[in-house]
């Protein structure tokens, strides 16, 4: 799979639902094949924040900016972490490229 670029926009897939339960944030597939615990993804605080930013409007660079302004992390590290998380989410089908995205 081609590595996503920071300019691209991604949106949360409609087949995934993210929920905060207690101290954890999980995203759960809700397609017609039932809930499979193995495909549930636990997100840490930063990853949960990134997940909530993936609205299809904001570019990757915009998400990284938001992370940097919210958490104590330098931009290069935030960008690398963002792209790694995005790769995982794409593999799971948890996010989809936004329409018109220059991916």
């Amino acid at each position, binding site marked *: 799979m081609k590595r996503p670029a920071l300019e691209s926009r991604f949106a949360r897939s409609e087949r995934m*639902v993210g*929920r*905060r*339960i*207690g*101290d*954890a944030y*999980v995203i*759960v597939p*809700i*397609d*017609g*094949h*039932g*809930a*499979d*615990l193995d495909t*549930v993804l636990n997100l840490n605080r930063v990853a949960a924040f990134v997940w909530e930013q993936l609205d299809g409007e904001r570019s990757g660079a915009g998400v990284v900016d938001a992370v940097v302004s919210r958490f104590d992390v330098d931009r290069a590290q935030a960008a690398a972490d963002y792209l790694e998380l995005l790769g995982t989410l794409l593999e799971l089908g948890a996010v989809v490229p936004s329409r018109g995205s220059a991916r």
Partner: protein
Amino acid sequence: MPPFLEGLAAADLVKTARDQGVACLLLGALETERPAWAAPLLEPLAAERRATLVRSLGQIALCARVQGLLEAQGIRSLPLKGAVLAETVYDAESDRAMSDVDVLALERWPDAIAALVAAGFAEIARGDHAWAFRDPGSGAVVELHRSVVSAPGLFPMDAEGLWKRSRPGRGQLRRYPSSEDLLVQLALHAAFQHGLVLSLVQWLDFRRVLEREALDLERLQALSARSRADAPVAAALAVAEAVVAAPVPDALRPWLAASLPRGMRRFIEPRLGEPLAFVASEPPSLARVRWELLAGRRAELVWRTLVLPETPEGETRFVSRMAAAGRRAVRLLRRQPPAPPGQPRTPATEVHDLGEPPVAPSSLARTDGAPAVPPEVPFAEALLRDCLSAFPQVRLTVSGRCMEPALAHGDKVRLVGASRRPPRVGDVVLARQTDGLRLHRLVWGPPLVPPGWPWRTKADRGLLLDPPLAAEDVLAWVETIEGRPRARPRRTAQALVSLAFALAARIRLGRRATEAEATR
């Protein structure tokens, strides 16, 4: 947070919380207060919460998908109960576990059924108010309703009004019923469908709706009156207040007090001091509650219970429905629920509102992690048991000739519940045998056997004894036979002679079998 009860095992607490549908709420409370005793509970409850979240989200997705399928056919529908509550009055879907999801079809019932079948859903059970289907993909169960509770029409459903008052969904579901409709539906379900015995989370639903939904109290009263549900609403709110401290608005109290029938009040009030009487798995007095709720409408209750909108074969002609009603009446008394034509029976744990097939009490201890919801007691036995405990005598028509001449086919007998006066050897008893309820003579039982020993019954014209019975399998005994005032149903000497003959027959048959074995 109360101190941990001495002698209570952590695993038992987790199991009970799960059975009552409150495991995730318990975890939330423990995480907030962190009592020392809670440490061993946190991990199993966290696993439970994660599993419940995944399951609930999948169930709600299924509910939304069914709504979409119906909408594609131009059929309006609304979700009912758990799925709506999980998205509206609980903080997360994991806080409101469900055994299945319910969708109310507001129109074109046959087309709604056809839409699900065409989409590959498999019918697994039928009730008069809802059919249960299994989603072929997830295996989850959806109940498609045409009425909120059994006996459609008893609480009239204003489909247009329901739709007009409904509101857009905030989560996966497309639309929700209005808050007032939701509360009326919950009350009908609690009172009429489940005889005021629910799991804790189902009672908590009332509290959450009252706390978190902006209810228009005038509209609530108007809707209750229009759907003739004043009594169920009054009864359910009274119980919810006792069980989970549901904050019933003071402004409603005069109306609620006036709406509760006298008999219902007599039933509820002594129990309010012991609210666990309303929590599963206490057996509901379903027939009694329905009877009291429908004060002034009892003939209609019987009519709508027996005469369904169509026969199991789909016939809607009046004559066919009446014939089916007769068969249903007999079946209810004999406890023989029908299977859908050509369909295997549903596993007992899968469908909770349809009442078929009978649900064993042990099914409350589920192993699949889903909460136990109080099963609707199979109506026939519930009806019989409740009638026997509520009334001094219950009338039953004898079928079959195995008790002649003591009881003839067609005789009408008056039964007295075993809880009112224990039967004795010589009585003709109504007992649950392996093949259903039977009126046979008690030939071995009190006062001849010590407590805990099995009892034996036998048909007067039968050769052998019936299988051994536990005392609780004997529901009632025959006190009188109508139209035969001089008949004596109890015949102690005959019972003992009958027992002796049965034992002799058994010995004889055993000897023949031995001889046959020897000559082979």
